[in-house]
């Protein structure tokens, strides 16, 4: 067991040594892997950020409940109290028709025209915020139905269409990221496989000699598997570096853009967990590529 471990450790460092002997070739291979991995990874970071932002929007969802014009402000307060008692409602704000008119006057610039009206045409309104748990499409829809059924409620407005469209779009984006990731992952396997294949052909005579003195295919394959792991690790680390640079380059302009829209946005980079998962994936892809190439080609080499 100790011998076995020692041998593996030796092969591991040995294969690293061999990669370091040809720094340019190794850098090229790792570079190709890095670019292939960085692209879907970067898209994923953008997607995660978009989701984080829209998740906040989901929470900020509100239902506008317009009351019958005959219902006075006491009735509005009464209904508000009734709604606040519900478990799926987080908050209810009463906007009286006077407040609404004042807001409208200010925002629309129709002050004069409004003065010409002999009565306030606006109804009393309740602004209902569902709880976080109820902020799902189904939850808000259910809330809307039951609020609409209350006496003195004229209409309930809930504009969820755009959120649903956005969510659908994000879902499409997510699929695109996955597909790109899968294709580029496949290309990593192929790149590593090809590099290992050339490596094996270069060391053909060495493999022959090893087989002549009784090496199994598995023994002859081992250093190449480790090379694949190193390529994957190197490529993965480089990809993380590339993504970090891209995020840093994009963060400033994006925050500026957000501030112009009066909102605050901080572009989040990769979290540690995702980065670790990503490295694990890169290593497995490298291992897979080298395994496929080494198994085939080493078997074919016979003294």
């Amino acid at each position, binding site marked *: 067991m*100790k*011998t*076995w471990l*020692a*041998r593996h450790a030796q092969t591991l460092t040995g294969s690293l040594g061999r990669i370091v002997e040809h720094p340019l070739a190794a850098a090229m291979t790792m570079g190709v892997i890095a670019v292939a991995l960085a692209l879907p990874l970067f898209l994923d970071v953008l997607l995660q950020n978009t989701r984080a932002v829209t998740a906040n929007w989901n929470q900020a969802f509100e239902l506008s409940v317009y009351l019958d014009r005959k219902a006075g402000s006491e009735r509005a307060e009464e209904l508000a109290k009734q709604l606040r008692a519900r478990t799926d409602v987080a908050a209810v704000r009463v906007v009286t028709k006077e407040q609404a008119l004042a807001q409208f006057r200010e925002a629309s610039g129709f002050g004069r025209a409004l003065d010409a009206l002999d009565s306030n045409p606006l109804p009393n309104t309740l602004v209902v915020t569902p709880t976080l748990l109820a902020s799902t499409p189904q939850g808000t829809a259910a809330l809307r139905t039951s609020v609409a059924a209350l006496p003195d409620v004229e209409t309930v407005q809930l504009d969820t269409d755009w959120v649903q469209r956005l969510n659908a779009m994000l879902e499409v984006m997510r699929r695109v990221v996955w597909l790109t990731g899968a294709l580029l992952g496949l290309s990593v396997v192929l790149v590593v496989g090809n590099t290992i294949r050339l490596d094996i052909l270069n060391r053909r*005579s*060495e493999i*022959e*000699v*090893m*087989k*002549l*003195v*009784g*090496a*199994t295919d598995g*023994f002859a394959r081992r250093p190449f598997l480790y090379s694949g792991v190193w390529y994957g690790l190197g490529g993965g680390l480089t990809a993380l570096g590339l993504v970090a640079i891209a995020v840093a380059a994009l963060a400033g302009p994006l925050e500026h853009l957000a501030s112009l829209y009066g909102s605050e946005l901080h572009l989040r980079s990769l979290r540690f967990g995702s980065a670790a998962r990503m490295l694990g994936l890169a290593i497995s892809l490298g291992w897979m590529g080298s395994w496929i190439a080494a198994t085939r080609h080493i078997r074919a080499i*016979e*003294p």
Partner: protein
Amino acid sequence: MTSPSMIQFEQVYKRYPNGREALAGVSFKIGAGELAFLTGHSGAGKSSILKLIALIERPTRGQVLIDGQNTAQVSRRGIPRYRRAVGVVFQDHKLLCDRPVADNVALPLIVAGVARREIDKRVRAALDQVGLLTKEKCRPLELSTGEQQRIGIARAIVAKPVLLIADEPTGNLDPDLALEIMRLFKRFNDVGVTVLVATHDVHLLEQFAARRIVLADGKVASDSMTNGKGVTAGEVEAA
């Protein structure tokens, strides 16, 4: 001969994919602990016989038994284990030029999964036997051809095989060095290793009392003992 046979060829034929028939019905037996030479012109089938023993090739027809085991029963997966029991010396010695001498000699042990400390001990013992203990850390290309060949021999015997085969081990050497190499084989034979050496160097053989199997056109032409004084002691019928 009553000693159990180490190598036994029974009506062995070998035809290569290009149509050349290298062996056409070869039969002979070599007992355990024997020293034998395989001679004949180039193309007579010497290399083919060694390749069949090392399982580098398989016979087209007939049987090859090594240490009582029929090689036809050794599967592809079983070949590595089989080869570890047979020491092979090549004419072009097949050393790994990018590794020091000690690593080259250690290769059969590394491949077999022997512990590091044990490897060091046995490598030094093997190098000592071929008289190259001081060259442990050299690269093969820093050594002379004769020394390279001796490294190849050290590698062949480091795993203590019961059978040692050599293909033209003196092919590229001058007569003095060749004699030295042959004496080395004789020494291994003296401690009980079965040794089969293929060589076309007839003059060299005359200095050894050993069995001599002569091949011609893929068949055993003669099988005799030489007494080491250049005189043929007596013909032995081909088995």
